[in-house]
């Protein structure tokens, strides 16, 4: 037993080496380097300025930048509204596809379609649906009354609602699958016992299903929150952050600073801020999930 341990350690390290190498070079080093870049003043368009170290100047600039504040508020608003809707709809989807009925496989297939569609395709699709002349939204709402057609994406409030709408459509089924996993581990006997005691469907849902689903709901909430925080594709395709910065989310603002304007230092400061926000959230996730794999056998 003991003579095998060193050999096993060695083999384990070799098996892990490629995965660790990729992770170090293309994920961990870049994050550290982003932080390093964020402490410098770098304008790619003006190399003559050099790349002086400026401490936390970029972060101070960000704190005083009204556009950055707007992007922060838009992102928070987007995260709160879309994840709340996705949890409610996801719960509904999970309850439906958990039931036994003939053709359930096909209903699950249908629910998975929005999840599987490329976000870019979903974005173009919703952009077309909200189109002022040819869009489905106007057709459904106003039919022949063409003069009432609304250019949805040209109004700040509607444009924000449109990206929330698209995100909810695209990702509710993913939340639903996480919640479904929670439903599947609730033992049937609990419901049988409640039925014998005369509990109605409604009571069983509120008194049994929801409390026992709490871990799965929290997990779905964390996943969706972290994902909504890095929304990019939808905004790039549907609104480009407009109109009037009403859909300007942090990842899009940072992308513009980095790659359109060449403000490497400032863009890096935005990206580090987004990273830290998500990192704090992901600590909860690792604590809840990562340890479960190693501690006990999955059910």
């Amino acid at each position, binding site marked *: 037993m003991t003579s095998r341990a060193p050999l096993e350690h060695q083999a384990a390290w070799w098996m892990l080496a490629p995965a660790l190498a990729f992770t170090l070079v293309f994920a961990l080093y870049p994050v550290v380097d982003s932080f390093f870049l964020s402490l410098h003043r770098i304008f790619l368009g003006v190399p003559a300025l050099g790349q002086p170290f400026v401490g936390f100047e970029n972060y101070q600039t960000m704190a005083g930048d009204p556009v950055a504040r707007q992007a922060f508020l838009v992102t928070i608003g987007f995260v709160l509204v879309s994840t709340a809707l996705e949890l409610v709809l996801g719960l509904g989807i999970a309850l439906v596809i958990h039931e036994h009925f003939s053709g359930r496989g096909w209903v699950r297939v249908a629910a998975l379609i929005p999840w599987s569609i490329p976000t870019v395709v979903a974005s173009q699709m919703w952009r077309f649906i909200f189109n002022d002349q040819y869009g489905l939204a106007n057709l459904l709402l106003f039919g022949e009354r063409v003069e009432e057609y609304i250019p949805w994406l040209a109004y700040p409030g509607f444009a924000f609602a449109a990206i929330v709408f698209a995100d909810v459509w695209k990702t509710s089924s993913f939340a639903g699958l996480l919640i479904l996993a929670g439903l599947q581990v609730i033992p049937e006997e609990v419901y049988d016992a409640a039925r014998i005691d005369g509990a109605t469907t409604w009571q069983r849902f509120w008194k049994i299903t929801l409390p026992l689903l709490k871990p799965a709901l929290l997990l779905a909430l964390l996943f969706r929150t972290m*994902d909504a925080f*890095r929304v990019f594709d939808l905004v790039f395709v549907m609104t480009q952050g407009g109109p009037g910065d009403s859909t300007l989310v942090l990842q899009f603002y940072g992308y513009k600073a980095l790659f359109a304007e060449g403000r490497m230092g400032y863009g890096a400061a935005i990206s580090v801020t987004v990273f830290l926000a998500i990192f704090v959230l992901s600590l909860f996730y690792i604590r809840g999930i990562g340890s479960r794999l190693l501690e006990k056998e999955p059910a």
Partner: protein
Amino acid sequence: MTRRILLGVGILLTVGLSLFPFLWFVVTSLKTQKEVEAIPPTWWPSGSLDFYQSALVDHHLTDYILNSVLVAGSTTLLALGIGIPAAYALARLRLPGKVWILGALLSISMFPQLAIAGPVWQILERIGGLNTRWGLLLPYVTLTLPLAIWILASFFKELPAELEEAARVDGCGPWQTMIRVMVPLAAPAIFTAAILTFIYAWNEFFFALLILTQPERQTLPVGIALFQGEFTMPWGELAAASVIATLPLVILVVLFQRWIVSGLSAGAVKG
């Protein structure tokens, strides 16, 4: 009774809301230019395939498809080739500190793309990987590894230890045990991880947008996001291109719904 009515309504809503918006795009792709420009829009298409032809011929779509197949296919192969041994080591071998290694690997999936975008771009610039398909492969493999490792490790963990013991008694080392005994048993998990990795790489947009600048090298998501006509937005061609980009995914979902559901609900990392 109320329960049955609720279920029926739920099924209708789930199926209807999931499919209807995309069906509208399918309908649009089968219209003629005249029908697309009708105000108010018409409900039924004439079933014309003009938009498919013009999307394929005039809009680089064949390039995008080829690039997407190459990039998503090789990402899947590489991520699994690297992920299988890593998952096996984390799930089955004794190694001090492996909780931390697993945690570090999994946390990568939470990184916002923006946080690594600048430096990844600079690395690729230095090694000549910008505007190449292999350059895109490097971040893709990195970002799909956590999900692949998570699915595989969860599965390896459940396999009985007796099989490994038997292999050891027969004189197999850790590598041989993994390849000859554990990998064949883990085929369902490998398959699930492969499907989810492929879908991720097929759909990814952010890094593809940064790294691939020439239309001949771009993947479907970039092509579709930057779709443009000469004067007006070519909605019909765009809808046709979108249907083509989505078709392989619909086929995967129809064929492998069970694997996808179990893979994602096993504690998936990203949708």
